């Protein structure tokens, strides 16, 4: 088939996805906007009244904001890692998930740091971090790492969009609004997919994808160090950095599976997102869940075996006050996905997605158990203080802002996939070209 015809065909196939907005989508976007508005109200209240309207107090200075931050940033870094690795795969099936991963990477890195801002009691002094940075402080490293990584991820995402933007610029039909056409033209920066341009673009994408793998590891390591470089029981651990990276990958792969399921279902993309993608991602999730389970066991076992007073106190809290959370996070959240993914018969699309949902919930709880119980069991005994100063419970303000963050993630995701196809058209064309090349090669071999 002629290349131009194929491109036009693809644009025609994906255009309805970009242009039409059914009632379901409108309800979805409205719901997300309502949640975000609630979150904004909560934010205004928190800004006006201060942290006293949250559950955070003198002892538990970090609440679910920091947990959401770690969770989202973990998603982003794992997305960057997976995206970078996928780029080096020459298989055609990577095309179906690569854009989901790239969008997830950037959006979670946009949403995640907002939560760290919410942890700051005096937001009016935020600029001090830039005026008086202390390079010795892991917080400063983290700011530098996140900002650098965010810019890197944006550039990478944009680079991968360019060929599709060029196709949309060249092949959009009359029904496409003018503003869209202008935006496609502006963002496509004159890309015509000439061999020279193709080579140049792929070269810089390759370099960027290599770099974002390294950056993801470095940045998430630094985030882990914010905890592990302190002597707090539950945090002071030499394996925290690799543990965080594995945990990030665990949540990242799980969120990719959930996104694949939702997108496939809503846009009827069964042709592109097939069972093989779910099974492949499921096996990756199985391997990572085994690793995550191993790291979790090692972490808690060494704490228990050390018989250190602080660790003993922490484990006692985990097995009493947080008993069910501990079981859900570290047993159910790990063993159920392993069980489902280990048995071949259970590897159906729905079951794999169910395992991914369990993994995400378990991992979020695992992060909760890393942050809160440690802050509730400090080295020095807390005397003559009110129980609510020692024990943490998130208030509706914190929950509203947390859900607003999740809603913002989904809203941005929805808006992006309304702007550019979720399945890269350029990738499909590259796949066709590769297939044609292979057939040609096969004929040659046959002739010989």
């Amino acid at each position, binding site marked *: 088939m002629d290349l*131009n015809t194929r491109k*036009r065909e693809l644009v025609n196939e994906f255009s309805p996805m970009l242009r039409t907005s059914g009632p379901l989508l409108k309800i979805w976007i409205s719901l997300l906007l309502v949640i975000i508005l609630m979150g904004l109200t909560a934010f205004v209240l928190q800004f006006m009244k201060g942290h006293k309207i949250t559950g955070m107090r003198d002892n538990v200075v970090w609440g679910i904001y920091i947990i959401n931050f770690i969770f989202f940033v973990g998603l982003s870094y794992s997305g960057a890692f997976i995206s970078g690795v996928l780029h080096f795969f020459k298989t055609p099936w990577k095309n179906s998930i690569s854009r989901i991963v790239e969008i997830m990477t950037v959006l979670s890195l946009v949403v995640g740091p907002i939560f760290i801002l919410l942890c700051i009691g005096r937001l009016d002094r935020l600029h001090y971090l830039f005026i008086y940075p*202390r*390079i*010795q*402080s892991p917080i400063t*490293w983290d700011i*530098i790492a996140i900002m*650098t990584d965010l*810019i*890197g991820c944006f*550039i990478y995402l944009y*680079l991968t969009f*360019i060929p599709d933007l060029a196709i949309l*610029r*060249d*092949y959009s039909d009359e029904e496409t609004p003018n503003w869209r056409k202008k935006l496609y033209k502006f963002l496509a*920066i*004159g*890309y*015509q997919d*000439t061999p*020279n*341009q193709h080579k*140049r*673009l792929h*070269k*810089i994408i390759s*370099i*960027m994808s290599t*770099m974002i793998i390294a*950056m993801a590891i*470095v940045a998430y390591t630094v985030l882990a160090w914010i905890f592990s470089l302190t002597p707090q029981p539950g945090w002071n651990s030499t394996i925290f950095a690799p543990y965080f990276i594995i945990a990030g990958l665990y949540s990242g792969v799980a969120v990719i599976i959930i996104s694949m399921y939702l997108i496939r279902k809503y846009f009827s993309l069964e042709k592109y997102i097939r069972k093989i993608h779910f099974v492949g991602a499921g096996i990756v999730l199985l391997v990572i869940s085994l690793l995550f389970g191993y790291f979790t066991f090692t972490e808690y076992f060494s704490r228990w075996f050390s018989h250190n007073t602080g660790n003993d106190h922490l484990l006692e809290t985990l097995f009493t006050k947080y008993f069910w959370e501990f079981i859900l996070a570290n047993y159910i959240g790990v063993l159920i996905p392993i069980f489902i993914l280990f048995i071949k018969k259970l590897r159906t699309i729905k079951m794999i997605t169910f395992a991914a949902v369990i993994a995400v919930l378990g991992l979020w709880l695992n992060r909760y158990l890393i942050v809160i119980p440690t802050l509730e069991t400090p080295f020095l005994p807390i005397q003559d203080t009110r129980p609510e100063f020692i024990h943490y419970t998130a208030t509706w303000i914190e929950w509203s802002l947390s859900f607003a963050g999740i809603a913002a993630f989904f809203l941005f995701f929805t808006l992006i996939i309304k702007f550019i196809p979720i399945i890269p058209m350029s990738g499909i064309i590259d796949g066709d070209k590769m297939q044609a090349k292979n057939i040609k090669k096969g004929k040659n071999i046959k002739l010989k």
Partner: protein
Amino acid sequence: MKSYLFKHTLITFFIAVLSFSFPSIAQENDLNNYKMQFSFNTVKQHDNSRLLEVSFIGKHKKNKRDILPVYDAEIKFFNRINEDEVLIGTSKTSKEGVAQLTFAADHSFLIENAGKINLIARFEGTEGMDAQEEELSVKDLNLELKLEEIDSVKTVQVFAFTKDSLGNKIPATETDVKISIGSMLSKMTLKEGTIEDGTFEFEFPKGFRGDVNGDIVVYSIIEDHEDFGNVTQMETINWGIPNKQSKEKANTLWSLAAPTWMYIVLTIMLVGVWANYVYTIFNLIKLKKEGDALDIEPL
């Protein structure tokens, strides 16, 4: 009624007997399981004082690891000459079962004609514990330690002699001696040799770490000698390498400046990453220029 009272009195008496007798029986049974060990020792120390020491412990007959020190037992020390015993002091055993008594260098012990000091340590016993006694005889050996550089060679010299009744020096012979230096946890032996004709000499090895000033404590030790018992001598000399204490790392979150390596590593990493961003943007500009040059109309 009478029988009722009698019955109850009998039961009460029986319970009382049981309550009071059981612990003592148990204790007696416990002690029977232990073999008492009473050992007496004397050390002539580096300042020429003499330490008398008794270790009084009970060892379980079956479980050798089960050791019970005898606490607060009064030990009497005697200096015997011929058949006469002269009480020279008493001491009570500590919680570790050790009783000690130290006599200054100028203390005059009663000495037999053969030049030996006879010492007795005695525990006179209690109702539950047998009496214990041990005697030992030692000659009063004078041990001198001399540390000096002879022809630029750091030399350890040991001189050992006894004195007769007239005060004449009699050199010690065939006496095993150990030269050690003090280290963090125990003494480290450098050389084992034999004193012949009252002297022993050896070259002090190089390269040992001393304290912050380079001082090393050198010991000469005679252990469990049949005539002299335990005799030690020590000297401090500046023959070691000064062991300077490592300076405390000044880097903290609140210190004024970060360490240089941190600046270097972070700069390299950040410059590397940002240089790549610049390179990418440069290539994007080139892409745009190439596209503009083609100037193809949309299809």
